[in-house]
């Protein structure tokens, strides 16, 4: 325990942790009547859980040196398709599998093209972002564009049901987080992700199956994005045309805030969770201050530019110290 605490204190994420705590305190004290109520906590849980699940997939990709911009579209598409098959009378469990299968499929396409085609991950996933968003629009055409309502109770339990006073989706998120944190920290397969991220070529030369790992991590990212989509759809009880729009950037920002780097080889799963909480709190602050969503985009843009510049600056500094430049 003490070791973990020391380790946390040494990381650069400590700034984010401190800001998060300060923001939380200010919100609790300054706006106690609006913020510190059960409803806010419940809505925070519901807004954090899907994003944190997507962030797990993203941080694993970032650790191994790539990223995935299609997660928002995959989330929206899997939600829409799950709602569609449910409305055609498919039972809950097969419907969930269909939704998750969509994510796996997209992840496979991304991963295959990046790993075995050697194609730039950014452009591939931008392409699948467009395809996914286009398919969402194609699935929810005409009357369906206002949302496909879901009446299947056993499906709605996933997102709306509670166990021990906490949303089921939050429990699912916790399981995913803990599993991912354990795997990346303690197992050799997880540690290999860091090797791949730090030096792809060296990792390949020492015999790590880099291409297969790439493929699997992209599939995991797609799978988790789809899971988030299914959970969010279950939570709202209706599919939405706008589920997951611009989500990919928020997730990448969360991961970068949590200590990951675009250059790869850094970051930890708990850090990405911290980043997600940080962004969720910022959005709460916006909402309490009644700042319009357009301004939220502006601020997200500023944060992204700032974080990416800082990240690049730190990477350059490290490389200079190592004499690589």
């Amino acid at each position, binding site marked *: 325990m003490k070791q973990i605490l020391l380790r946390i204190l040494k990381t650069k994420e400590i700034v984010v942790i401190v800001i998060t705590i300060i923001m939380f305190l200010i919100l609790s004290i300054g706006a106690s009547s609006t913020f510190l109520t059960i409803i806010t906590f419940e809505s925070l849980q519901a807004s954090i859980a899907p994003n944190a699940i997507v962030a797990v997939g993203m941080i694993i990709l970032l650790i191994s*040196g*790539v990223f995935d911009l299609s997660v928002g579209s995959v989330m929206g598409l899997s939600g829409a398709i799950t709602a569609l098959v449910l409305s055609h009378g498919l039972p809950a469990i097969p419907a969930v599998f269909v939704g998750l299968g969509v994510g796996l499929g997209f992840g496979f396409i991304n991963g295959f*093209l*990046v*790993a075995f*085609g*050697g*194609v*730039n*991950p*950014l*452009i*591939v996933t*931008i*392409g*699948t*972002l*467009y*395809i*996914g*968003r*286009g*398919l969402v*629009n*194609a699935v929810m*055409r005409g009357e369906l564009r206002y949302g496909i309502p879901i009446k299947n109770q056993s499906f709605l339990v996933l997102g709306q049901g509670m166990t021990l006073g906490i949303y089921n989706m939050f429990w699912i998120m916790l399981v995913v987080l803990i599993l991912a944190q354990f795997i990346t920290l303690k197992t050799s397969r997880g540690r290999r992700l860091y090797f791949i991220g730090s030096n*792809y*070529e060296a990792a390949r030369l020492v015999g790590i199956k880099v291409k297969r790992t*790439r493929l699997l991590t992209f599939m995991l990212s797609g799978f988790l994005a789809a899971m988030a989509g299914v959970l969010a759809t279950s939570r709202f009880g209706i599919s939405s045309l706008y589920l997951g729009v*611009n989500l990919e*950037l928020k997730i*990448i920002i969360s991961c970068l805030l949590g200590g990951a780097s*675009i250059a790869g080889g850094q970051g930890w799963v708990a850090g990405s969770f911290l980043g997600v909480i940080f962004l969720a709190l910022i959005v709460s602050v916006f909402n309490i201050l009644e700042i*319009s969503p*357009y*301004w*939220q*985009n*502006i*601020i*997200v*843009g*500023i944060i*992204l*530019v700032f974080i*990416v*510049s800082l*990240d*690049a*600056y730190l*990477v*350059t500094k490290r490389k200079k110290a190592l004499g690589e430049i």
Partner: protein
Amino acid sequence: MTEAGSKIGKGLRNVNFGQYSIYIVTVIAFLFLSLTRENFFRYTNVYSLVFGLSMEFLLIIGITLLLIMGEVDLSIGSVYAFAGVFTGLLVYELEIPLIVSIVICLTVTGAIGFVNGFLVVRFRANSLMITIGTMIFFRGLTDVLINFLKGITYPYEYRAIANFKILNVNFTIFLMFIVIIALEYLLINHSSFKKLYYIGENTLSAKLYGIRVDRIKHTIFIVTSMTAGMAGILGASRSGQTVWNTGQGLEFKMITAAILGGASLFGGKGSVVKSLFGLFLLTIILNGLIMYSVDPVWTDVVVGTVLILAIVFDTRINREKLVY
């Protein structure tokens, strides 16, 4: 075979068809649509396609120049939207004369390019990520401005820019041909434009040979934003009113077009004429979808698929350069 025939055969074998594939594909697509859809090869349709192209060609110039150097700017779509609305704001709300408004607007967009370039050059940040940040920032700012202006129609003089005609043809079409041909000539022949290719081929050796890489990159980022601003002013002038989601996804369309035209994300390749043909091909494909009465919701799917196919081919050709 006769002697002349075998000579032609040899000559044909020496021609690198990969180099001309974009022209061939464009011509085939054009002929295909002309033959199968009678509404396609009408003067009005082709004219409106070329007119649309003459609004967007300014964007493809910036993207191509950046891609030649191995950089990219994703913020052009947002800058495009921002410039149109911002000029509208200056003219309509603050009642500043049109010329002055345009100058102010281009200065501001130039400043955007300055910031992009500064961050990329100075911090060696990934230009894709940086410009995603400025993209989302200016999308937000544009939404704020539109929300403030509401759905207005721009003043007449602003709307008149895009409709200015010479010999009954919109001046932007002349502008397109002149600028593209001049730039292509310079890129092939002029030493200071050739430097872009050297930088894209190998930044380090370009630096060692005394090319001021950072300064050139910075300049091109500024040029890209300013041309995007000009295109945005023309586009807004054409539509005549504030429109939500103007220029959304334009940056990906441009990158797809440039890559179709032989530019590469790895740098060192590209030509503005071919990029323009790439854009024309994409325009034809989208127009063809409408001609075949395909639901517009599929547009994104098609653009995404074409983008992925183009990039896969690009990677196969430039394979040895980089592994992800």
